């Protein structure tokens, strides 16, 4: 061994094709070769998956080894000499290729993988032009794996990447190697769809055309597509994606590698939502209401109508008579210009927190909601407490990181209103109704010493009566013991009637346990919306505004005379669907700026402005880490639809507002960056005082309604393949067995759900995952669109 000081014990020198490399002891040859840029052919090896070494394509010659060795499963040793291109290595690789091709059909011309196929590529280098195999090839029957993944299992070469992906990464082994020898096939065995929310990644890992994208199938060839880098438009992770377009139309979405966010994976929501771009109800022309009818008009007519309507409202009712509700999936540029528009007219009525109902202590909130740590760091926590989060469906990528942490021994802990299923071990979970959640979080805080002499009087008073239960003590202890601990609030905490209280308590927990505090913001640009000033109490750059404007709930409860909805569908996107829809009707002048003109929108809109959707506009999203990620427009908006920032620019000019002469969206972004670029997610003052417990006041049944994974925003709600999956089922009402017995509903198949005046009839399912005192009725679904608060009082009776 060399005695040079810089050499570590775990380093070895290995020679590949005559060149020496330093490598970590025990590292596989293929990793060392990949890092060095030496190409070794492979099918089953995947850097993110456990080694299977079953395709044998990566055979290489190793000095003194009696036969070629698989590079993916052979650890390097000091002084090892590897030959990847020696006659012996090449002969072995060619022999393997011949075997792999024996049963592989020669159907490349009709195979979707053609042109981007690992087998096709490698057979060019290692295959022979004529097959010696004259016998019958085997044929494998296809089974339906659901609406997302198309199968052609005859093409399968048994690399088992898909099996390993589902087992190890997606955490739910749904495919297996069924049968033996020549009869072995990759299958579910029982006919059923793959249910994982990350299932589409099996398409990417499949080296051949056995697993392909069902919606994309037979629609384009790989070489006809143009690739545009983009950022995923749904959850707040900001996963890197690539849009593949042909003729200005998005044909498919695939992941881009970004080790610090999504590694090489994306969720099915990010992969398949593009289908929503081509929904039948896309708005293609501006429309203005004339009498009972909406008539298509020219842009200038429509924009004049909007400007007139807004001006009239301001003249008649003052600046408070206008209000804007904007989707947290809007771009930073759209949010910022909307903010400038509203404030330019003297109002502060703008909000993006559509599913939120408790806005107390918003003044103390940080400049933007943030994870409190890098996404990457989630996989290195020792303990994490998630409050009100179905993280697996809200942010699949964050869940994947937490899964890695949990499998490495981290304690992942939950306080949830429903007993969600996770794909990782959960160390401790408390499932309770909303009031019980508050008590549980308070119990954990108390167990950690909150409410002591140093705390605020209100907190001392509130925590005085709290006696931590054993589970709460266990959670407190796990957090205290974790060297890297984190407390995170999810979407069901943000929608909780006592969100401010949960937050104040969670921050005390984090402070007492030495943990980071963070939130899992709901949407792709929730953080950006705060930064751009799409909140009533702060202007762009988190500059406080006094007095604050009306928040989303206030605007819905008493609608302004002129209401602008930017990519918002009130009946699906708001905390109280029924009230939001009522507000859209009640407002004297309702402007719908968005990509879609649903039936509902056509009823309440006075003007409809078609706005370019995701993928059709340039813009910026700020993810849960506070990372600004820009993207360009990749697809052509349909008909007359125009990018939102352009529409708002013209509107600003029509209204005579100064400084609306932007040349491009980058200029809008730069202006905002100058105001907000240095913002951090620090809290401003005390974590908030502890006051009224709204949820605890409610007696009787409480509705718990989350926005299901494929119902979160207008785009994904129109993604046709995703809507056919099991996860997109329409609303049902679920209650605990004991609750069903107590309410006399044990035998009821359907129930009438009532929330004030709002009511709906839904199928009833008795489900042990629901705590007593609660009814689980998802929001954002057709079945629940007529209902009231998604977390709020509810009553049930047998449907007539």
């Amino acid at each position, binding site marked *: 061994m060399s005695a040079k000081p810089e050499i570590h014990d775990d380093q070895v020198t290995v020679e590949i094709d005559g060149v020496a490399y330093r490598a970590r002891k025990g590292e596989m040859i293929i990793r060392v070769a990949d890092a060095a840029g030496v190409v070794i052919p492979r099918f089953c090896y995947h850097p993110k998956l456990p080694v299977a070494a079953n395709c044998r394509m990566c055979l290489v010659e190793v000095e003194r080894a009696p036969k070629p060795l698989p590079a993916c499963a052979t650890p390097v040793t000091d002084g090892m000499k590897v030959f990847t291109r020696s006659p012996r290595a090449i002969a072995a690789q060619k022999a393997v290729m011949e075997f792999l091709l024996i049963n592989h059909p020669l159907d490349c011309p009709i195979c979707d993988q053609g042109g981007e196929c690992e087998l096709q590529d490698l057979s060019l280098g290692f295959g022979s032009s004529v097959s010696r195999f004259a016998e019958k090839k085997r044929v494998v029957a296809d089974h339906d794996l659901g609406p997302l993944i198309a199968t052609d299992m005859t093409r399968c070469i048994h690399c088992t990447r898909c099996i390993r992906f589902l087992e190890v990464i997606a955490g739910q082994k*749904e495919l*297996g190697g069924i*049968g*033996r020898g020549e009869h072995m096939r990759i299958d579910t*065995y*029982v006919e059923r769809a793959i249910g994982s929310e990350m299932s589409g990644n099996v398409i990417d890992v499949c080296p051949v055309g056995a697993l392909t994208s069902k919606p994309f199938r037979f629609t384009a060839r790989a070489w006809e597509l143009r690739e545009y880098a983009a950022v995923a438009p749904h959850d707040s992770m900001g996963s890197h994606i690539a849009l593949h377009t042909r003729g200005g139309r998005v044909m498919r979405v695939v992941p881009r590698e970004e080790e610090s966010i999504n590694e090489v994976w994306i969720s099915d929501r990010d992969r398949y939502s593009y289908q929503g771009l081509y929904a039948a109800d896309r708005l293609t022309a501006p429309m203005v209401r004339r009498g009972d009818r909406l008539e298509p008009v020219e842009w200038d007519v429509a924009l004049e109508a909007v400007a007139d309507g807004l001006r009239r409202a301001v003249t008649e009712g003052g600046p408070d008579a206008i209000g804007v509700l904007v989707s947290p999936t809007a771009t930073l540029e759209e949010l910022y210009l909307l903010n400038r528009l509203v404030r330019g007219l003297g109002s502060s009525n703008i909000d993006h927190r559509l599913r939120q109902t408790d806005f107390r202590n918003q003044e103390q909130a940080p400049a933007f909601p943030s994870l409190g740590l890098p996404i990457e760091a989630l996989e290195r926590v020792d303990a994490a407490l998630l409050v009100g989060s179905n993280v697996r469906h809200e942010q699949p990528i964050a869940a994947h990181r937490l899964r890695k942490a949990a499998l490495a021994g981290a304690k992942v802990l939950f306080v949830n209103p429903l007993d969600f299923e996770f794909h990782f071990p959960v160390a401790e979970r408390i499932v309770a109704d909303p009031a019980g959640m508050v008590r549980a979080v308070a119990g954990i805080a108390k167990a950690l010493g909150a409410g002591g002499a140093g705390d605020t009087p209100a907190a001392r008073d509130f925590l005085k009566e709290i006696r931590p239960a054993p589970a709460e003590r266990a959670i407190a202890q796990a957090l205290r013991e974790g060297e890297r601990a984190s407390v995170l609030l999810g979407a069901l905490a943000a929608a909780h009637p006592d969100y401010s209280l949960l937050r104040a308590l969670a921050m005390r927990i984090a402070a007492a346990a030495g943990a980071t505090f963070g939130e899992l913001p709901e949407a792709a640009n929730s953080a950006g919306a705060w930064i751009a000033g799409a909140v009533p109490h702060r202007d762009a750059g988190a500059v406080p505004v006094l007095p604050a404007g009306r928040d989303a709930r206030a605007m819905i409860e008493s609608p302004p005379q002129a209401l602008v909805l930017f990519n918002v569908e009130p009946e699906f996107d708001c905390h109280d669907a029924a009230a939001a829809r009522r507000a859209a009707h009640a407002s004297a002048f309702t402007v719908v700026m968005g990509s879609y003109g649903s039936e509902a929108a056509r009823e309440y809109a006075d003007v409809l402005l078609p706005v370019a959707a995701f993928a059709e506009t340039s813009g910026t999203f700020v993810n849960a880490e506070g990372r600004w990620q820009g993207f360009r427009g990749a697809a052509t908006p349909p008909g007359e639809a125009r990018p939102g920032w352009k529409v708002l620019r013209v509107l600003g000019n029509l209204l005579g507002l100064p400084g609306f002469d932007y040349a491009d969206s980058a200029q809008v972004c730069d202006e905002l960056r100058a105001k907000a670029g240095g913002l951090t997610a620090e809290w401003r003052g005390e974590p908030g005082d502890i006051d009224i417990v709204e949820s605890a006041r409610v007696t009787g049944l409480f509705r718990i309604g989350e926005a299901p994974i494929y119902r979160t925003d207008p785009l994904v709600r129109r993604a046709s393949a995703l809507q056919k999956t099991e996860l997109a089922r329409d609303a049902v009402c679920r209650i605990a067995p004991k609750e069903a017995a107590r309410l006399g509903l044990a035998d009821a198949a359907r129930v009438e759900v009532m929330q004030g005046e709002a009511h709906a009839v839904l199928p009833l399912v008795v489900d042990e995952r629901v705590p007593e005192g609660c009814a689980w009725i998802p929001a954002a679904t057709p079945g629940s669109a007529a209902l009231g608060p998604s977390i709020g009082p509810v009553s049930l009776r047998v449907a007539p």
Partner: protein
Amino acid sequence: MTQSEQTATGGRAAALTPASRKAIDLWVAKYPREQRQSAVLSALTIAQEQNGGWLTTELMDAVADYLGMPRVSVYEVASFYSMLDTRPVGRHKVSICNNISCMLCGGDEIIRYVERKLGIRLGDTTPDGRITLKVEEECLAACAGAPMMTVDGHYHEHLTPEKVDAILDALE
């Protein structure tokens, strides 16, 4: 209540009879606690016995849920081993070796003879439900007695058509 009964709370584990569970528990006890799935082969054999010689999907699910492993992993095991059947079988299972030693000593002729005699092909069951001829039985490690077959797990060596007649005709 045994350890394994406690963990077998949900799912379809109830499809296993108490006797089967007890037998499986003996096997579970032989492995480290966190490696219950090591008992899968024995558990499937026991479950198969419970059901008269073959495994239903429900029974495989029961084994999976009882041992706390993915169901598809159990299907993988059950479909891999030739002594486990996933389709209905006859009262007797006849496996005739078709590997090299038996083949050289006339195993193929024995297979053809049996197929003709019973009027079924390998993999099929006689219409009266008496005999299942198992498909592609590989080497059963009795090459010295080739050609050979097993009947319900019992070895019969140095087979001739006459000997086969005697063995098969004696089956109820």
